[in-house]
């Protein structure tokens, strides 16, 4: 117990708040009530969720059905968006996917009026029941362990009462009842490690701040999520922002910091709006401010928007950016915990680490530590994308293998294509092949394999993806985002990129692979910050596991996946092309397709820009367009007939 705060007052205030929240939430859960929860986070909206919501409102109204229609966050099952959870008396809450305004019309008609569950679009029931299969029966959901996502897609993110009724802020109250040292011990025992990718033990950072008692200090929530392909942090902020506010309150109490900042990348306008609203609502209910719930402990949070710089995900660069400067990383030591924002001790934590913090206290450290492996506790949250059947967010206990995530949960590679690699950790991470799929997902095993946990983007690549091109893509990104401060990253990544470009254009030489390996090692050792240090990882892993592809590009001028434009040609198979069809000709932007004497179409290799339009235009029943690599293997064709010039006299 702490002498310097009034715990009893806070507990009392929280109890009355909880009562109110429970009452409001209870109304929704009443057996006789109906509700529709429409998943309307960013990807839901881009799939048409707002139109679906409107359709529900209109349709229910037109039939005189009383039901609460609420916009919720992302359920994580993005492959089935737009989604909605529908509850009506007599039935468990039902998850429906692939909705559209027309389907919604049918759904309301059939489910509400005719009591027909509309199985064609039904995914599963949420809770235990003895009528319908549950979401938990599907591997996509059943094999997940949703803790960071505990409230996502199930509550209105813009209503703090929903969050409180579903256990938000209770962890904070428990923390308040302990001394700072006790709380720190609990955190230590839980084994929580930073989920921003670094995996640094959470309690250590906090201890560094506690040891600076009395000095003004700050907390920063890193919501920059610059990794292209990662959207976990965005989802948490859009769907359950109070988990982050609570995490910061807990951290604020343990470390003695009075002010926190949430640094959100500007490309996430909905996330910015939601976390901002959550903070405003927290203030209104007394959960933020000069005296949180009357305890005497003061804490408040400010939202800072990024301005478009991947490097600002690095903590010292982020601090510079918050100070209004160019986001250039600084040498460490001194570490931010010694000298950070405005020169004061600062702890920077990722969104997921903060969202996990309340669980450490509501569950207790022992239970928290029972999930995961010996050294990596808790769950890992990934944004599964690329060539996967069930893209979206996947949350699994640490220790789950990559194979389980990609095939059992993700549903494998669609369209009968063969799996080639999984890219983990974004531009700082690596590509792992089939042989590494039994690697367990935890901080250390992934580093051993050559990848990193990173900020959880997991992109699946298949036989149609080129590993040289993939490495080049990441280097291009890193090069553009390099801050330019240090020699190795600024100039080194450019040379690596140029070399990869040469290789992908057929200009590679046998000594190029050794050149890349040597330069990669130097950049890793010599760079000032982690952006530079990890920039070579995509190259190192692709050379390690896919060296044969590099050698094919260099020695045979062949791109096995037929992706690299300079090494690939589009060709129309004469025996599949149908004389009467002209579909490809019109689709070709540079007008590179002509008809030969037999009216079979031919691609003019000199004009072709490899845009893939003809392949898309050719009717599937003919399937006449193929890609050939190396280009030397393109069979000869009748030359293009000369255009007869009509000369006007």
């Amino acid at each position, binding site marked *: 117990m702490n002498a310097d705060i009034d715990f009893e007052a806070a507990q009392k205030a929280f109890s009355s708040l909880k009562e109110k929240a429970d009452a409001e939430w209870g109304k929704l859960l009443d057996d006789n009530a109906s509700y529709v929860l429409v998943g309307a986070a960013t990807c839901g909206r881009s799939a048409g969720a707002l139109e679906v919501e409107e359709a529900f409102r209109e349709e229910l109204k037109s039939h005189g059905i009383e039901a609460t229609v609420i916009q919720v966050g992302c359920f994580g099952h993005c*492959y089935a968006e737009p989604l909605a959870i529908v509850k009506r008396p007599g039935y468990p809450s039902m998850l429906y996917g692939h909705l559209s305004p027309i389907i919604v019309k049918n759904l309301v008609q059939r489910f509400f009026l005719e009591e027909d569950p509309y199985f064609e679009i039904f995914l599963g029931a949420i809770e235990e029941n003895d009528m319908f299969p549950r979401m938990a029966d599907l591997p996509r959901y059943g094999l997940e362990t949703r803790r960071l996502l505990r409230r996502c897609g199930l509550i209105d993110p813009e209503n703090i009462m929903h969050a409180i009724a579903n256990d938000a802020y209770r962890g904070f109250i428990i923390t308040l009842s302990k001394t700072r040292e006790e709380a720190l011990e609990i955190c230590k025992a839980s084994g929580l490690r930073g989920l921003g990718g670094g995996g640094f033990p959470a309690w250590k950072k906090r201890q560094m701040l506690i040891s600076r008692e009395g000095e003004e200090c700050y907390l920063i929530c890193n919501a920059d999520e610059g990794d292209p392909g990662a959207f976990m942090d965005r989802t948490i902020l859009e769907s359950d922002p109070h988990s982050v506010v609570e995490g910061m309150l807990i951290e604020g109490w343990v470390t003695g910091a009075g002010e926190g900042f949430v640094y959100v990348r500007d490309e996430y306008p909905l996330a910015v709006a939601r976390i901002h609203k959550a903070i405003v609502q927290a203030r209104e209910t007394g959960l933020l401010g000069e005296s949180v719930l009357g305890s005497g402990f003061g804490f408040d949070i400010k939202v800072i928007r990024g301005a478009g710089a991947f490097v600002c995900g690095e903590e010292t660069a982020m601090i510079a950016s918050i100070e209004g400067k160019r986001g250039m990383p600084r040498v460490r030591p001194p570490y931010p915990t010694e000298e950070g924002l405005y020169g004061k001790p600062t702890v920077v934590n990722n969104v997921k680490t903060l969202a996990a913090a309340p669980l450490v206290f509501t569950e207790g450290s022992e239970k928290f530590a029972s999930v995961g492996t010996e050294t990596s506790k808790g769950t890992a949250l990934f944004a599964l994308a690329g060539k996967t059947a069930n893209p979206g967010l996947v949350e699994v206990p640490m220790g789950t293998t990559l194979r389980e995530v990609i095939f059992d949960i993700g549903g494998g590679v669609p369209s009968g294509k063969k799996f080639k690699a999984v890219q983990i950790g974004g531009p700082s991470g690596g590509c792992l092949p089939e042989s590494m799929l039994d690697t367990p997902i935890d901080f250390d095993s992934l580093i051993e394999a050559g990848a990193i946990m990173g900020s959880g983007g997991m992109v699946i690549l298949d036989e149609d993806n080129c590993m040289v091109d993939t490495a080049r893509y990441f280097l291009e990104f890193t090069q553009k985002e390099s801050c330019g401060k240090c020699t190795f990253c600024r100039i080194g990544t450019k040379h690596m990129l140029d070399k990869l470009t040469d290789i992908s254009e057929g200009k590679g030489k046998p000594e190029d692979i050794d050149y890349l390996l040597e330069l990669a090692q130097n950049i890793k050792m010599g760079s000032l910050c982690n952006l530079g240090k990890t920039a070579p990882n995509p190259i190192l892993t692709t050379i390690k596991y896919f060296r044969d592809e590099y050698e094919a590009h260099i020695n045979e001028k062949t791109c096995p996946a037929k992706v690299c434009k300079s090494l690939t040609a589009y060709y129309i198979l004469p025996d599949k092309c149908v004389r009467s069809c002209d579909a490809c000709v019109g689709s070709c932007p540079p007008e590179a397709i002509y008809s030969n004497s037999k009216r079979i179409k031919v691609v003019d290799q000199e004009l072709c820009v490899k845009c893939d339009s003809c392949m898309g235009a050719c009717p599937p029943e003919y399937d006449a367009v193929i890609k050939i690599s190396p280009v030397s293997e393109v069979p000869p064709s009748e030359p293009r007939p000369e255009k007869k010039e009509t000369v006007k006299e």
Partner: protein
Amino acid sequence: MEVVEEQEILEGISTILDTEPEQFRNLISILQEVQERFGYLPREGMIKIAEHLGLSPANVYGVATFYNQFRFTPPGKCHIKVCLGTACHIKGGDLIMDQWKRRLEIDEGERTEDGEYSIERVGCVGCCVMAPVSIVQDEVVGDMAPNRVDGILLQHQIAKEKAEREAKKQAESIPPGGTEPAEEYPE
């Protein structure tokens, strides 16, 4: 985005700097506010901001040019952002960018001569499930393909011409002194 005259922008910036000064003690948030309202950072505007914050114009320029977000020339009326995040790239995002450039005959970061279109490359916008994605005038268009570019441009052109026709009709049909708007009767 409406095209606003530079003088108006400078007046707008003065208003921003004068209101709620506490909120804007940070250079980047001021620049963001100006960018959001006017679409770009005019030269004279940056000088004003520097003066207000006690920085030198070179310092402000140094900060503004560091970040992707800030533009120094006005965007087109129809601004197109092509996502080139990982998922979009894997699904052929580069081919789509090439097609936009080809059709509009401009490069990334440029604007068409008539001021109508501009193209920008953006990092991941978080709609990876619908990759590849282009954002046309703030509307997310998912499952893009090179052959959809023409359709989108045509749609936009048609909508623009329709709007122009309507505006002309309105202008011509309003008698001097104005008129009452027609009432909508509920069905």
